[in-house]
């Protein structure tokens, strides 16, 4: 049971001033969680002046005082939005899920309770709950509009279908209008701690390329040394450990030989997430976009890698460059997860404009990648740039594996063309001997990986 409560108080801010994305905190409440995004006039009553003038003019021209009189209420409506003031919300959000570690495909009921903790009634509040992009709403609606007396609570619930991965709910978006609808305030209300749905994922093994650095791990190499699997025997050299001497052979032949095993080493893996605009394409409206799958894939790979001794790092190119140096251990994994869930580059909301220059970010990435680091690139392969980046990294000596969620569709001619383009990119990468895991999102990532690995063997 995940239970999150957020108390929020919007402090003394000037009515019309928009505090874009700024945390508005009140003196008495230190952990304020309403973030005002935008306050604007809707201007919906603007046209009413024309009506008043028209009726008034006809009244005067036809010399009908009653008609002129009838413009009184109309003119009053012109002033209506000025009289109602703008909403000053104080809201508390509580979100509960009936099972926060569901099985894949299970229905999870999400209940959101929102309380008006302020002093004024809110005549028109609209809520859109921040459903994680990968989760499909199966029943009910995460959207709700109501009237809230001070102190009263509204409750709505809906059902989502669980998908693999760790899904963090986004803050509730609240749109508040005054009773005339003349002013609209958009704000986000967080629940603290954030609600998280974790669905145990099923990536059995992360596909790694055969190259690594010299510390013990699970990557079985072709180099002889300490390990489990027999590699070869060779002539004894001074300094070889006694335990590795083949004593049976010594007893038989009198020659000293040393047994070598295949060395198992740890790899350094950097999960590189493509978060540029082209990654935000979806197969259809309302379907999760490529970025959502990128994040889900990264999440699953991170979990699988967390069970090994491999060094894992995280990088993303998009709005800006995002980097987490490779590390190992539970603490590092937690940091990586937090970064995945919260970093602005990894937001599930598409960027408004094309990022400044991906080349600079790519250069920064190459600078920071350690000499023997492998790269697992998560990208829907939406454009040519990402292919060339993969080829460049490979050429620079960083073995690249591409995990590509397939978000192409054949709904229209353009979509079919994009789909063919993507096929071409996949095959050009495979020609360069870069393994590509073509992940069709209706099957688990693990299955796609196993398929590709079976083909390779």
């Amino acid at each position: 049971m995940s239970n999150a409560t957020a108390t929020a108080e919007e402090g003394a801010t000037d009515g019309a001033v928009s505090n874009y994305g700024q945390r508005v905190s009140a003196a008495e409440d230190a952990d304020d969680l309403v973030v005002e995004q935008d306050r604007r006039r809707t201007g919906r009553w603007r046209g009413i002046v024309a009506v008043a003038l028209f009726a008034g003019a006809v009244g005067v021209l036809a010399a009908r005082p009653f008609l002129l009189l009838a413009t009184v209420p109309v003119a009053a409506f012109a002033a209506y939005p000025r009289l109602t003031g703008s909403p000053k919300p104080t809201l508390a959000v509580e979100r509960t899920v009936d099972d926060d570690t569901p099985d894949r495909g299970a229905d999870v009921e999400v209940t959101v309770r929102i309380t008006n903790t302020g002093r004024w009634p809110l005549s028109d509040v609209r809520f859109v709950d921040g459903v994680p992009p990968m989760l499909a709403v199966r029943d009910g609606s995460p959207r709700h509009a109501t009237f809230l007396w001070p102190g009263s609570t509204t409750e709505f619930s809906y059902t989502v279908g669980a998908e693999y991965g760790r899904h963090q709910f986004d803050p509730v978006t609240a749109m508040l209008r005054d009773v005339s609808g003349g002013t609209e305030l958009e704000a986000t209300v967080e629940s603290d701690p954030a609600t998280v749905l974790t669905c145990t994922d099923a990536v059995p093994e992360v596909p790694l390329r055969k190259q690594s650095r010299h510390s013990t791990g699970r990557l079985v190499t072709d180099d002889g040394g300490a390990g489990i699997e027999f590699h070869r025997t060779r002539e004894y050299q001074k300094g070889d450990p006694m335990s590795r001497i083949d004593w049976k052979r010594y007893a038989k032949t009198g020659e000293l030989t040393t047994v070598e095993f295949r060395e198992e080493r740890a790899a350094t893996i950097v999960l590189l997430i493509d978060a540029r605009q082209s990654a935000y394409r979806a197969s259809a409206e309302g379907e999760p976009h490529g970025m959502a799958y990128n994040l889900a894939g990264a999440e699953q790979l991170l979990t699988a890698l967390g069970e090994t001794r491999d060094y894992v790092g995280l990088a993303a190119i998009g709005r800006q460059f995002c980097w987490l140096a490779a590390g190992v251990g539970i603490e590092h994994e937690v940091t990586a997860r937090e970064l995945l869930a919260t970093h602005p580059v990894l937001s599930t909301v598409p960027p408004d404009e094309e990022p400044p220059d991906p080349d600079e970010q790519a250069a920064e990435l190459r600078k920071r990648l350690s000499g023997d680091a492998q790269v697992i690139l998560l990208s829907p392969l939406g454009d040519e740039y990402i292919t060339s980046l993969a080829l460049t990294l490979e050429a620079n000596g960083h073995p690249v594996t591409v995990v590509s969620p397939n978000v192409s569709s054949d709904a229209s001619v353009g979509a079919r063309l994009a789909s063919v383009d993507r096929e071409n990119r996949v095959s050009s990468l495979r020609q360069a001997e870069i393994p590509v895991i073509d992940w069709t999102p209706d099957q688990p990532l693990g299955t796609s990986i196993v398929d590709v690995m079976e083909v390779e063997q």
Partner: protein
Amino acid sequence: MTNVVYRPSRVSSAIAVLAAAGCVAAVGSVPEQYTGIAVTLGGVLVLALGTALYNRGIRFLGFPVALVGLLVAFGGFAVGVALVGSYQASLTLRGELLGLLGVPFIALGVVPLSRRLSRRLVSLGFALLVIGVVFVGAFNGTGTDPLPLLVGMVAAIVAWDAAEQAINLGNQLGTRARTWPSELSHSGGTTLFGGVGIGAGLVMINVNVTDLPLASLLLLLGAALVLMVALYK
């Protein structure tokens, strides 16, 4: 993610159509006109039924039903016009029904005929309602009771406001969300404020502004104009 159906919300749409019919009824004066209004409302009901069927996927049935509903809704005006023909001042009585043409347009706006056009259709319907009320005011100005005009004007505004609310709620939240409390509170607020406006109008009659000469009325209009410009500065 799931597809959200963005359509104007139902409660406000119903309020809009009823208020629009109320606007016409307020300025009407003979029972035959009410027959026309009833026919139009019946047509709108059938139109709503037809579109509901259409949206549920029963297109072959929904489309003709909606079309019949629309024709009947417009036919309400024709029925009203034909029925009042026997009266002496039939032109005035027909003019009083002008607003009835606006009702189906508002209904088309909130059904909606097309998401892009819905606001325009509602505005067109609202304009027809206002023209109807103004026509009555201009031709029937010798009447002694200003209340129908005031109520008609406010009802037209309530209708437009509810239709617009239905559209913007539908755009933001879709049809599956439960929205009726905020719709009722919004339209309730508008109606209440309209009532205050009507009250103010009636008070002004009692202080006898209606006996003022035309020049003073013109001055009043000018003053109102200045006030409105100031409001939007």
